[in-house]
Every structure is written in C-alpha cells, then in structure tokens.
C-alpha cells in the first residue's frame, strides 16, 4: 500500500497545537463548573452596577406629605424646600384635617401639613423624622419670609428665584484624581483578573498532572512533541479564560451603560475592560508557562499543591496587597513599584489603570517588562516540561528537570 492510499493528511506542527487547544477548550467549555462560575460572576457584575444605580440616582420618594385643599402654593413650596435639602417630597391633596389625620394614621401619609395663621401645623403618627422636621422649619421660615416680603411690597417669587440662583464660586487647586466609582472599577478589575488567573492556572496544572497520572501522556507523546502539547494546553485554556473574562467584563460594561449607573465615561469603562483583557492575556501566558512546567514535576494530583503553592502565592500576594492598599492609598509608592514588576503587574496594573492616574510610561514599561519575560519563560518552562513530563514516580526537583538531558 502506498502512502497516497492512506487516509493520512499532512498535519503541520501548528495544526497539532490547534487540535490540542481545541480539545482543551471544548471539553472545558461544556463543563458545568465553568458555565456556572461564569454565569454567577456575570450576574454579580450586573448586580453591582444595578446596585450602584439605586444608590447614585435615587428616584424614589422620601416622604409623602398631605396638604389641605385650598392651599395652592403649598405643594410647590414643599417640593422646593425638599429639593434644597436633597429630599424628594411628594404632596397629596386631602379634603380637610380629618382626612389628613386618617391618612397619617393609615400610613398613607408620612405627615399632614396645614397653614395655621402665621404658623404651620404638622400632624405625624408618633414622631417627626429629623429630616422632615428641618424641611418643615425651613418651610415655616419661608412662609413667614414670603409674607414679610409681600408686606414690604416685594415679590416673594422673584426673591426666592434670586436666592435659589445664588451659589458660591468654587475654585479647586487640584483635580480630584481618584473617585470612588473608579476605585470600585479597579477593585472589580483586580478581582476578575485574580480569580481568572487562579482558576484557569490551577485547571491547567491539574490537566498536566491528569495526563501524567492517567498515563495518556505516553500515547500522546508517541504522536506529538511535548512543546506542541504544552503550547496547545496553554492556548486552549487561555482562550477559555479569555472568553470568560470577556463575557463577564462585557456584561458589566453593557449593564453599566444601560442603567447609567456610573458617572464616569463609557470611554474609561471600555478602556478598563480593554486593559483588563490585555493584562489577562499577558498574565495568563506568563503564569501558565510556569504552572505547566512545575506541575510536570509531579505524577499524582495529591502532590500538585506542593509545587503550585509558591507560584500561586505570587498571584495571591500581588492581589491581596493591591486590594488592601489601593482603596486607602491609590497613589501608594510601593504599589507603583510593584505594578512594574512582571510577577505582580498582571494583578496590580489593571487595578491601577482602572483607578486612573497612571502615567503612560509606567503602563507601557510594565507591559514591556512582562512581555520581555515571555520568551525566557517559554525557553525555561519548555525545557523543564519536556524533561519532566515522561518521568513518573516521585516528585522531580526543578533543578534536575532543567538540567536533565531528555
């Protein structure tokens, strides 16, 4: 039989990598754990932006005030006083004082107000809310004031308009650099990249060990080269993580825009999401190479923690330092330096970038340094992985794996 009759296609090296990546991606994409985690994370991000909406733009009513019929200016006055105090006061016209009392007793009204000569009478159920009390005092004062103005031959409406337009001229010596919303955005970015690196980094490591412990590795390596397997696994799981982080970040951006939750611009939200994805790619690539190499040193899932812990500690410490220092001190010098170091940059830089105020040179330097590490990591990790992947039995020393001729 000649080769031409055989069903073997030519399969180039990258074709093999693509096949391996495809398997990693598809088997994991269908896993329930992955779907549930992604769904929950996306929901949390959406919930966070909805929560922000209800806090920042409160359109609800703070109190409903009953007013008697025949006091036509009172509702407007109450609304105006409420607005000046930051309260949203609704008025409801009732027939008379008895209906007002009934409304307050039933809880339909928070208070009933009626002009009583020079004073205002207020009926409440048991005690008057301090905010409402201030409002009513201001209302009483302005009622008196209006009458005095009228007596003096003035126009109360014109005076009120003039008062409401009076405002101080504010001059700030420094722009506010860090606002709360951007800080929260930074924390969310940090949590996403941290969770993603941790989750997919460990999944990669377990996959490497699974191939060793199930011994399928020998069958695979009789057909493909170790670097193809390693590259395929890193790319496949990396793509999976990318899809996940894009879905979550996308859900966040869309819900923030749709609900108008944030006062910061769409541009900076999208910028945060874009930087997040760039740093996820760089961070995952770097850490995945290291994790694949160290997990190749062991043959059983039970031994995996011993080799993973030192690497995971780098990810965890970067995140923990960032999340505990940045909210109180967004401009911390320690964080500025750490966020340039490739081991911590993937967690810290996206947080800083989301918070804002990062000089362009710092952002580019951090990225450049991290990218410069990748070829070195490919060389070292590829060598360790190749030397260690076929060794079964007890844990291999990193140094031996680096040195050993295959």
């Amino acid at each position: 039989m000649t080769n031409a009759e055989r069903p073997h296609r030519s399969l180039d090296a990258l074709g093999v990598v693509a096949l391996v990546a495809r398997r990693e991606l598809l088997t994991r994409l269908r896993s329930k754990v992955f779907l549930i985690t992604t769904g929950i994370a996306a929901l949390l991000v959406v919930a966070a932006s909805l929560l922000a909406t209800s806090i920042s733009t409160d359109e609800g009513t703070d109190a409903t005030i009953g007013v008697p019929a025949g006091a036509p200016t009172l509702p407007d006055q109450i609304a105006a006083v409420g607005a000046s105090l930051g309260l949203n006061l609704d008025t409801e016209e009732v027939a008379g004082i008895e209906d007002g009392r009934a409304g307050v007793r039933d809880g339909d009204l928070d208070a009933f107000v009626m002009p009583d000569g020079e004073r205002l009478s207020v009926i409440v159920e048991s005690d008057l809310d301090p905010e409402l009390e201030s409002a009513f005092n201001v209302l009483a004062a302005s009622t008196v004031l209006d009458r005095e103005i009228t007596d003096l031959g003035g126009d109360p409406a014109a005076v009120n308009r003039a008062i409401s337009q009076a405002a101080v001229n504010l001059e700030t010596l420094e722009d506010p650099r860090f606002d709360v919303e951007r800080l929260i955005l930074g924390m969310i970015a940090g949590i996403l990249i941290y969770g993603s690196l941790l989750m997919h980094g460990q999944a990669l490591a377990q996959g490497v060990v699974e191939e060793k412990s199930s011994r399928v590795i020998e069958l695979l390596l009789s057909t493909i080269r170790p670097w193809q397997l390693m590259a395929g696994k890193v790319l496949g799981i990396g793509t999976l993580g990318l899809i996940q982080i894009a879905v979550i970040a996308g859900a966040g951006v869309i819900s923030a825009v749709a609900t108008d939750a944030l006062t910061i611009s769409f541009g900076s939200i999208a910028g945060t999401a874009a930087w997040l994805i760039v740093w996820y790619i760089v961070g995952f690539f770097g850490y995945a190479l290291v994790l694949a190499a160290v997990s190749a040193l062991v043959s059983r899932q039970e031994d995996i923690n011993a080799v993973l812990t030192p690497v995971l500690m780098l990810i965890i410490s970067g995140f923990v330092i960032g999340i505990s220092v940045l909210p109180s001190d967004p401009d911390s010098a320690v964080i500025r330096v750490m966020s340039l170091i490739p081991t911590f940059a993937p967690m810290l830089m996206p947080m800083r970038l989301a918070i804002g105020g990062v000089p362009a040179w710092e952002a580019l330097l951090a990225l450049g340094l991290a990218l410069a590490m990748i070829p070195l990591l490919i060389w070292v990790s590829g060598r360790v992985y190749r030397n260690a992947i076929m060794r079964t039995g007890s844990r291999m020393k990193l140094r031996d794996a680096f040195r050993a001729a295959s």
Partner: protein
Amino acid sequence: MRAWAIVPSPRLELDSLSKRYGDVVALDECSFDVGAGELFGFVGSNGAGKTTAMRIVLGVLEADAGHVRWDGAAITESTRRRIGYMPEERGLYPRMKVGEQLVYLARLHGLSPAAAAKSVDAWTERLGVAARRDDDVQKLSLGNQQRVQLAAALIHDPEILVLDEPFSGLDPVAVDVMSEVLRERCDAGAPVVFSSHQLDLVERLCDRVGIVRDGAMVAVGAVDELRTGKTERLIIDAPQAPDGWADGLHGIVNSARRNGATMLEIDSTADDQQVLQAALSTGPVHRFARERPSLTELFRHAVSAEQPS
C-alpha cells in the same frame, strides 16, 4: 536485468540502540529488524529493555546511541504518526468520552474529521465497544478499556504496529480478537512488533522472535531456527520397560523417568526409529512422541546461559 531485481519490502530496523539511566544499562547495542508483513515477537524478562526499545522507536524516549530506520531512512515525525502504538502503561483520558477520545487521537495522527469518525465507528464496532462510545472511559470495565486502548492503536490505519504487552489483562475472547487483528494487520503488509510474556502465544503467532537479555538481543530468528542445534526429547510410555532400557542407544544425551514414562533427551545424531524398536522389544508401547523444545524452554536457556565476558 532490471526486470528481475527484487524490490525489497520496507523494514523497520533498530540498529545498535543503547540507553542508560544513570548507572543502569537499559539497552546495550540492541539490534533487530522487522519486515513488512512480518509478526515479530519481542520477549525478555522484566527490565530486559523491551519497553525502552519500543519507546525509542516511538520517539517517546531518545536513545543515547543507535538508530531507528523505516524503509532505509531515519524515522521521522511523519513516519511516527503512521505507527500504531500501545504503551505498556495503558492510558486514556479518564473523563473523556470513548468516541470523542478516539476521534481526537485519530486526528492527532493526521486523519480528517470525516475519516476519523468513520474509523472510530468501524473499530469500536469491531472491538465490541460501539455501545460505549458516549460513555466516559473511566466508566468502562478494565477489559473494555483495553479494547478502547487497542482501538486507539489502530484508529489511524497504521502502517507499522508496535505493541507493548498487548495481551496482558485480556480475557480469552479478547485475546482471540487481538491475535486476529495482529495477523490481519500483518497480512495487510504492516510490520508488527509486540512484546509478551505469554510465550506459547508468541510461539503460535509469530513469524520471528527476538529474545532480549540485559538490554542486548541474545537470539533472533524464526522459532524453528532457534531450535537448531538444541536437544529434542522423546517421550516413550512403555510400562514394562526396565530402568536403563535405552542406555547405550546412539545419540542419547540424558534419560529420566516421569510418571512411568521415559523421557530421553536426544541430539541430532540419534535415530528415533532405533529407539522405538528398542522400546517395543520390552513390551507394549502406549505412546511414542517426539517433542521439540518450546519457546519457553528456548527462552529459559537463552536468558540463563552464561554471559560471554
């Protein structure tokens, strides 16, 4: 005249393979070759180097010295993709469905998705695991996992088969299926190398065998060739024959009584008809048989022989 030239069939050659692990010599200039359409049995004690040799052929291990050639040329990655391999350490992805896993492995060997699917259908059918295609491998019994493992070795219609202990752990029915498949691949023109400790099976199936000891080949050839020059045996059941009845006959190397029968070890100068005559002269003869040494005996002899120093 060119027309008369014989086109040599391609051979898989292992040429002076050597491999050490630290101070342990796993292979010491081990050489043998297998022709297309030949079934080659690779036997040796545990740790003799069989698995190491096979791993080197597949490129899973690198030899310290020596070469592996197919059809006269150094074996390449694309040649390796056309080898069907069954590792001694069986292994498949435990949490992957049988069908998907086989398709994946077939595609890693270069098959198109359509060809891979077709081949998976055919082999799972043939090996009796078609009904389990949608089950995770870990849900299968050990016997069925072995069948899937064999399917994994055959899924890409390999041109060469290298199987490490393919019969271990198989039930008798599966052993028959496996033997049949090996024979069939071999008849289709593939060189087939397999290792086994079941020497009766090797003797029955193989065209040639190689016996390896301490990493070196100590005997290679057809079983008949290996028997050449070795003593054979005559078993004679003559109940009335007195002790020592055969003494003095020509070519008797040794004699012993076993369960009332006489066992004579003879060399090539012995005349069995003369022995029969002598036996008949003592009374009735219920059984007279010539026994050739089995592969097991040849193996014992080969691995226990003094090592030339």
